[in-house]
């Protein structure tokens, strides 16, 4: 049960006296004005956790409401605001920044052997930009909320909704720039600041994943920014380019929206895939199976993801010719994901597998992502999507990937690098227990939604025909278990910051430059820039792969 502290460096100074990034200086100002990527990662960690719980609270209210067919809790208008604010918070303010802005910010420089990102001040700016966007959105939530769905479809959003479209649009617009800045920073850093010896094909796969994600940030986010901007203008001026009255095409809005928002779903999953590659290798002590296939599949996903957006619009009256193109490309984008899943599985073969908490999350991820991904095939295929579009089947599909996949990966990653971030261990028993509760609660919540969707229950329904009640109640019951599952880590993580056992530099016996530094790392990460002499994940060779200058 207790964690193996395998790599305590002899002669490391006692924890209390060593200077590291957390105790280098104190006070609010030292945090709010920091340019240290590790501290910025923690600022992000705090803010997105907050947003997750806000979004989760909306979900809890929604599930409570849906216990009864007539709606148990709120007015339809309020329900509409609940799912909209839930979607907006979870997507734009939690899941998109989740891994890139926290683990990515923390790890990218460390994994490539750099002292910081290329543009530390830009990095801090990106956090402030995020916060400003979040404040606008929270303001909107308090002052009446938004009821357009997270997809902002026109003309409902531009001319008919009576809610806070402009503040939320502004919030999303602004937050977009924080994504752009993060992506820009990563691309430049990964290109220009790798340690000597760290060639592209020696990079940890997490870095490949962050690189692919950054490409999407850079190429996709500006389009949602301009789209939302145009929507806001149209709303303010009562005239604009999506307005059918002057010949505007409301479907064009959907094209622009999904041009970003489909790739955005890979923004949410690619980093999680990166985490998987790190965790699976470490806990099976094996080099990743098919390194270059996994690396290139990340890049393939980043590129192809931009070609499939029309699969969200099969029933909108989009041209059926376009539908055909988008359908075939959607199938194509599934292949790289399949490649990854099989390679992770094959990595376990003849490994030395231990079941610590990060690994349990990883196993959950692989299984649930597979299921969520495969149900995506139902939606990519034209004939079945006609029936399933707009139903709970979609809701189940994306929660399987985003909650079962991405959030699991995020939690797994946090558990994996927590000792590095804080220098402390969390109670592994509790962590495994939480993983189990989350897994069970999750399936109970969302599996019934597949059935509901196929039976024909539309999504975004505040009231529903009575025959759907039983499955809805099961789902709500599951959600309460899931909610508790998420509270457990919150508690023991906070506990561990103070009372957790000291972790040492490399509690898992993991490979990678980030484990070569003390935990928590010093402000400049490395006393001297390491020189890399081996491939990534060289677990067969127990010695360190770094030459000391």
């Amino acid at each position: 049960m207790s964690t193996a502290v395998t790599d305590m460096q002899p002669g490391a100074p006692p924890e209390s006296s060593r200077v590291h990034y957390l105790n280098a200086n104190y006070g609010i100002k030292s945090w709010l004005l920091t340019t240290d990527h590790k501290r910025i990662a923690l600022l992000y960690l705090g803010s997105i956790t907050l947003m997750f719980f806000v979004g989760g609270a909306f979900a809890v209210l929604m599930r409570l409401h849906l216990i009864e067919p007539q709606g148990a809790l709120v007015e339809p208008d309020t329900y509409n605001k609940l799912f909209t604010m839930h979607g907006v918070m979870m997507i734009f303010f939690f899941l998109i920044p989740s891994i890139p802005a926290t683990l990515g910010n923390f790890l990218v420089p460390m994994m490539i052997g750099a002292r910081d990102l290329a543009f530390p001040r830009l990095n801090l700016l990106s956090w402030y930009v995020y916060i400003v966007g979040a404040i606008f959105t929270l303001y909107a939530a308090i002052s009446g909320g938004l009821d357009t769905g997270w997809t902002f479809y026109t003309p409902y959003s531009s001319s008919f909704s009576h809610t806070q479209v402009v503040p939320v649009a502004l919030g999303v617009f602004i937050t977009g720039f924080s994504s752009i800045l993060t992506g820009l920073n990563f691309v430049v850093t990964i290109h220009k600041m790798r340690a000597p010896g760290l060639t592209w094909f020696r990079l940890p796969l997490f870095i490949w994943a962050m690189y692919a994600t950054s490409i999407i940030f850079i190429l996709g986010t500006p389009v949602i920014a301009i789209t939302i901007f145009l929507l806001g203008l149209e709303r303010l001026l009562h005239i604009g380019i999506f307005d059918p009255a002057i010949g505007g095409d409301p479907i064009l809005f959907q094209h622009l929206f999904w041009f970003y928002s489909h790739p955005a779903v890979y923004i949410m999953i690619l980093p999680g895939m990166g985490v998987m590659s790190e965790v699976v290798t470490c806990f099976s002590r094996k080099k990743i199976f098919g390194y270059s296939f996994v690396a290139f599949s990340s890049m393939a996903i980043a590129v192809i993801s931009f070609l499939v957006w029309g699969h969200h619009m099969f029933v909108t009256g989009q041209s059926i010719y376009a539908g055909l193109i988008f359908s075939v490309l959607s199938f194509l984008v599934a292949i790289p994901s399949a490649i990854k899943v099989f390679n992770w599985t094959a990595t376990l073969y003849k490994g030395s597998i231990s079941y610590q908490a990060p690994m349990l999350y990883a196993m959950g991820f692989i299984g649930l992502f597979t299921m969520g991904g495969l149900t995506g095939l139902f939606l990519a295929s034209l004939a079945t999507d006609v029936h399933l579009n707009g139903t709970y089947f979609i809701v189940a599909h994306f929660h399987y990937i985003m909650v079962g996949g991405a959030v699991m990966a995020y939690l797994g990653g946090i558990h994996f690098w927590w000792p590095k971030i804080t220098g402390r261990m969390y109670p592994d028993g509790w962590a495994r227990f939480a993983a189990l509760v989350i897994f069970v609660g999750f399936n109970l919540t969302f599996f019934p939604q597949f059935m509901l969707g196929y039976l024909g229950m539309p999504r975004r329904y505040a009231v529903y025909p009575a025959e759907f009640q039983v499955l809805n109640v099961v789902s709500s019951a599951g959600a309460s278990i899931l909610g508790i599952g998420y509270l457990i880590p919150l508690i023991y993580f906070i506990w561990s910051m103070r009372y957790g056992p000291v972790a040492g530099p490399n509690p898992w016996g993991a490979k990678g430059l980030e484990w070569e530094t003390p935990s928590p790392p010093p402000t400049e990460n490395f006393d001297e820039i390491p020189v890399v002499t081996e491939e990534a994940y060289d677990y067969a060779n127990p010695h360190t792969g770094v030459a000391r200058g």
Partner: protein
Amino acid sequence: MPGHVVPVRVYVGVFLALLALTGLTTWVAYFDLGAMNTVAALAIAVTKMLLVILFFMHVKYSSGLTRVIILAGFFWFAILVALTLSDELTRHWTPSPAPWGLLLPLIRGLF
């Protein structure tokens, strides 16, 4: 390698070329060339852009990486336009019985 120093002569030459092209494109707009008006306007604009990118922005002298990045930008823009138009321009085509027969007008439509 400090940045490449481009002679002033080149800058002035590019500047004059740009001015001339501006005149040209304006002049051409006064003739009715049918669809060619648009083609001419865009062709001249692309030429001007290339001049600015290659000389003013030093891409002629810069690394492959920079070029790849610029090309990626334009390529992705092309994706956005092409796939959006693939819907907007083919919406009122009437469906024919088999999907494979459908590819024909699509291919014809492209050329």
